[in-house]
């Protein structure tokens, strides 16, 4: 018989990037030196989490082509952001390939020039008056989510003397409990900047890097409109023996 208070497959911390990864310089002073304290028996505090089905979302919260205008009078083609129109979509599943329905997926990104709409980003590339760079949605009952956006540009950052981030979209998922909480980045298949990025290189296992690559999905693209990139998210597997109301 399995322990009733285990709900999730253990997180393999050697698969994830370590806290201290000196090639990514900011980790040096921001990584704990002490070992993590293992909770041998997690409790409801760790095994439960928020349900966002009652969070009221706007009609374009998952459509970054339409959800931001500096000048709201601009609509239609006059108000569209610059860049390659894309669909980013996929499924949230757990390690047993079970869909994670109705869970909150949030994303944020730079514009086509690699500039973020953030008060601390001063990169030379200009802001796009029709692009905010934030999206959110809930997965459907089968775990599917989708966003419409533009492909973000790569951008330089101060790490080594000439470090560039590959094009990427930051993505956040809650899953069924705070134990499954995960924030990662989706990279684009074939980008030559991926293998030389110090942040990607914090990950030791090549196969783990593959879990962060969005793949071109031509059949799901809209002809004469936009390409589609598929990005499935896998969260910790939920064991079958846990009962919520114990």
């Amino acid at each position, binding site marked *: 018989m399995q322990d009733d*208070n285990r709900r999730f*497959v253990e*997180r*393999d*911390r050697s*698969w*994830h990037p370590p*806290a201290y990864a000196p090639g*990514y310089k*900011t*980790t*040096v*002073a*921001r*990584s704990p*030196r*002490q070992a*993590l*304290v*293992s*909770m041998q*028996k*997690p*409790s*409801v*505090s*760790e095994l*439960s989490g*928020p*349900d*966002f089905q*009652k*969070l009221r*979302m706007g009609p374009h919260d998952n459509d970054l082509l339409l959800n*931001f205008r500096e000048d709201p009078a601009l609509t239609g083609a006059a108000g569209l952001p610059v860049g390659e129109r894309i669909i980013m979509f996929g499924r949230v599943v*757990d*390690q047993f*390939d079970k869909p994670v329905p109705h869970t909150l997926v*949030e994303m*944020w990104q730079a514009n086509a020039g690699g500039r*973020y*709409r*953030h008060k*601390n*980003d001063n990169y030379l590339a200009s802001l796009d008056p029709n692009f905010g760079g*934030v999206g*959110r949605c809930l997965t459907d009952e089968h775990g599917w989510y989708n966003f419409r956006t533009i492909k973000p540009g790569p951008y330089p950052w101060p790490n080594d003397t000439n470090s560039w981030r590959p094009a990427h979209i*930051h993505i*956040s998922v809650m899953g069924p409990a705070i134990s499954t*909480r*995960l*924030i*990662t980045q989706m990279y684009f298949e074939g980008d030559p900047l991926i293998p030389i990025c110090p942040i990607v290189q*914090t990950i030791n296992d090549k*196969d783990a*890097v593959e*879990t*962060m690559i969005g793949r071109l999905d031509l059949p799901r693209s809209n002809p004469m409109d936009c390409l589609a990139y598929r990005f499935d998210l896998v969260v*910790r*597997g939920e064991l079958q023996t846990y009962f919520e109301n114990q």
Partner: protein
Amino acid sequence: MKQPNSVPCSELLLRETASQTAGPYVHIGLALAAAGNPTRDEEIWNQMAKPEAEGEHIEVVGTVIDGNGDLVRDAFIEAWQADGNGDYQREYDLKKPFNSFGRTATTFDRGSEWSLKTLKPGPVAHASGQPMAPHINLMLFARGINIHLQTRLYFEDEIEANAACPVLSRIESPTRRETLIAKREEVDGKVRYRLDIRLQGEGETVFFDF
């Protein structure tokens, strides 16, 4: 499909998607006002308790400090806690007087504090059946943090409950246990608890794996 019993069990499981840092611009996605951007109709933020919520209203504040002793100004924090009765309210609904989930961020100004307006949580049962002392679960994300750090905030005026808490007792070093205990302050007649989170070095906060 794989033939049953033909591969090690570990190969039957998918691997978790690997984590990456939330980066310096996490606010664009998860804390829009902090990025200097317009907010949507409903945002998940730091007012977990509305004035009409039943229970002891408190404010929880703190800083995040790195291994050089400098303030981390771009930290983003999520909180998950029980209500005053010790129940987790799973359904997030801004119409309710209290939500168990909240978000906050350190600010870019000099003081660089995060804050939550919430209720003092009640005790929650541990798996062993013993009660755990009132606590707030915190998840910390920032540039330079490759996978979020998980910790708990306890309350200094819960001396007996803290002493008996099965999770605090898991921490061998009594000195390190202290890193989770928020200090009580009273400001204009309001109760405020303060916890500074130290990422590294002297007084390093205890972070959990679960």
